[in-house]
């Protein structure tokens, strides 16, 4: 059976108006996600992960702007909708983002249930009654293993892990089919992180959400639940493949280096020196010509400086943007 397409983002290009210049944070990125899929997006800080997520959802609040491209979520053409239409029919109901640093997103002066009321009411012209909303919330809190008494608490009374759960429960209250989680685990310690991963895994397996995009700079974290991975660098997608392939048989030289940089948990590691990737990530206001990774690539050839490699299927199901693989 062919799984249905939940996200079809084509040739997305966008960035930030900075007065005199335009910072192109995302350049010609295409990404598909199917029902039941958990897709990881990895890349170093500042490479455009959050920006891509916002562009996919149509969250183009100035200075962010879409230049080119198309995003279709559950058959809805995002950029054919006005801002107000996106608010009414798209966000929260079809697609939801758990934003970076969301742990601090809860208003400290409001009880959790009041946040819930606000979120739900905003989406309906004739909202359900308070008790109906409360029933919905209790059910979802239960499903994700958070005691519904938390609804009657203030954020400060919840532990980090409980807060995370509350945020996820609230974000998925209106049953969006598509969830984007932007670095949801980075601020957490490993044990809380693990609980959150389990929670996201459960959301998909229980069919509470159909598709998940999980953004993180930490590949070892992504690999725990993602079937597929997308590697970004300097506003570009360099590689998309099944997780096992990306980790064990990376195609792109950047991915290869990234895997070598992950610290294994073995005692002898103390005596070794891992290399990292020498050099700095490029300035997005003035990116390198041709392949953006060429100044740091150990395989760079003359062609790499001149021409930008397109993202193509180099092997079955494996997309890569590198001249080594695009003969």
């Amino acid at each position, binding site marked *: 059976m062919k799984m249905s397409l939940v996200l079809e983002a084509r040739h997305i290009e966008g960035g930030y108006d900075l007065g005199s210049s335009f910072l192109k944070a995302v350049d010609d990125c295409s990404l598909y996600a199917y029902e039941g899929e958990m897709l990881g997006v*990895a*890349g*170093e*800080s*500042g490479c455009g992960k959050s920006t891509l997520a916002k562009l996919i959802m149509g969250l183009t609040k100035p200075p962010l702007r879409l230049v080119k491209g198309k995003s279709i979520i559950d058959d809805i053409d995002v950029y054919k909708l006005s801002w107000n239409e996106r608010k009414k029919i798209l966000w929260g109901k079809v697609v939801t983002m758990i934003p970076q640093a969301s742990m601090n997103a809860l208003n400290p002066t409001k009880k959790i249930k009041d946040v819930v009321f606000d979120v739900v009411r905003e989406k309906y012209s004739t909202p359900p009654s308070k008790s109906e909303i409360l029933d919905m919330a209790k059910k979802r809190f239960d499903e994700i293993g958070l005691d519904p008494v938390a609804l009657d608490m203030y954020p400060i009374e919840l532990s*980090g892990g409980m807060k995370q759960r509350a945020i996820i429960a609230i974000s998925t209250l209106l049953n969006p089919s598509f969830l984007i989680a932007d670095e949801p685990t*980075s*601020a*957490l*310690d*490993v*044990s*809380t*992180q*693990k609980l959150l*991963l*389990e929670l996201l*895994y*459960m959301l998909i*397996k*229980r069919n509470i959400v159909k598709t998940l995009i999980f953004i993180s*700079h*930490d*590949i*070892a*974290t992504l*690999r*725990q*639940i993602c079937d597929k991975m997308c590697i970004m660098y300097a506003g570009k997608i360099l590689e998309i493949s099944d997780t096992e392939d990306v*980790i064990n048989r990376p195609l792109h030289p950047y991915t290869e*280096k*990234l*895997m070598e*940089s*992950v*610290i*294994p*948990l073995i*005692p002898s*590691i*103390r005596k070794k*020196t*891992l*290399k*990292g*990737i*020498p*050099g*700095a990530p490029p*300035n997005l*206001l003035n990116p390198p010509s041709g392949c953006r990774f060429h100044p740091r690539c150990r395989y760079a050839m003359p062609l790499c400086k001149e021409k930008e490699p397109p993202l193509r299927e180099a092997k079955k199901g494996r997309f890569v943007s590198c001249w080594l693989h695009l003969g």
Partner: protein
Amino acid sequence: MNMKEEALLRVENLTKIFKTGFLGKGEKIIAVNDVSFFLKKGEVLSLIGESGSGKTTIARLILKLLKPTSGRIYYEDTDIWEISDKAYWRKVQAIFQDPYASFNSFYKVERTLKNVFKLFPDKVSEGEKDKKVHEALEKIGLNPKEVLGKHPFELSGGQMQRLLLARCLIIDPEVIIADEPTSMVDASMRVILLNIFKELSKKADKSIIFITHDISQAFYISDRVLVMYRGRIVENGPVEQILFSPQHPYTKRLISDVPKLHEKFKFTLT
């Protein structure tokens, strides 16, 4: 000579109690509970523990940003509260967890970095300041042209964390306390930053307290590890000992919960 005598920094029976609620009338939180340890010259000591276990509080106490409820901290056998702030902060510096909170958001990066020369006893010429700033930025892989003219909110979290390390390199202190200094960078940059800490200890004989909840980073760079749980030190020893024979159940959990690249957690739906 015993180990204590070699210590550069010594923490003795340190306790910090926070009182929450209006006018401190509410609950008491024992953030740090009777903690003692020492740090030798040239040593990397890691402080590992879950969030809320008191790691950042210890960092703030050592930096004199908080007064202890009880207990003492000595730098070269002098109580740190008897040393002037300016002299002490030349010797002991920190890289904090939330990089944005550490930089004044109204100042451009250049001004913030150059402000550190105020800690220096002698006047530094503009040319010398520029040189030091550029050297430090290059070392941590940031392009001076790209960052110096920016405000903190125009930079990513990873860039900010690296700027904090640059600031530290300019000051050139004897002790660096790094509180989760790599939480916002990717694997390749993390290794580069960790290597800088390793080099500072091995080549420049600097002492480092490295705070993290990621046990693999701690093992990569440290000589010794302290495991904290609810304000107390529950385990203390060399890396090998803690990895091979962890004693405390909490240490065991830390080791099993860290995500590994070549291993997948097994989740069972309940």
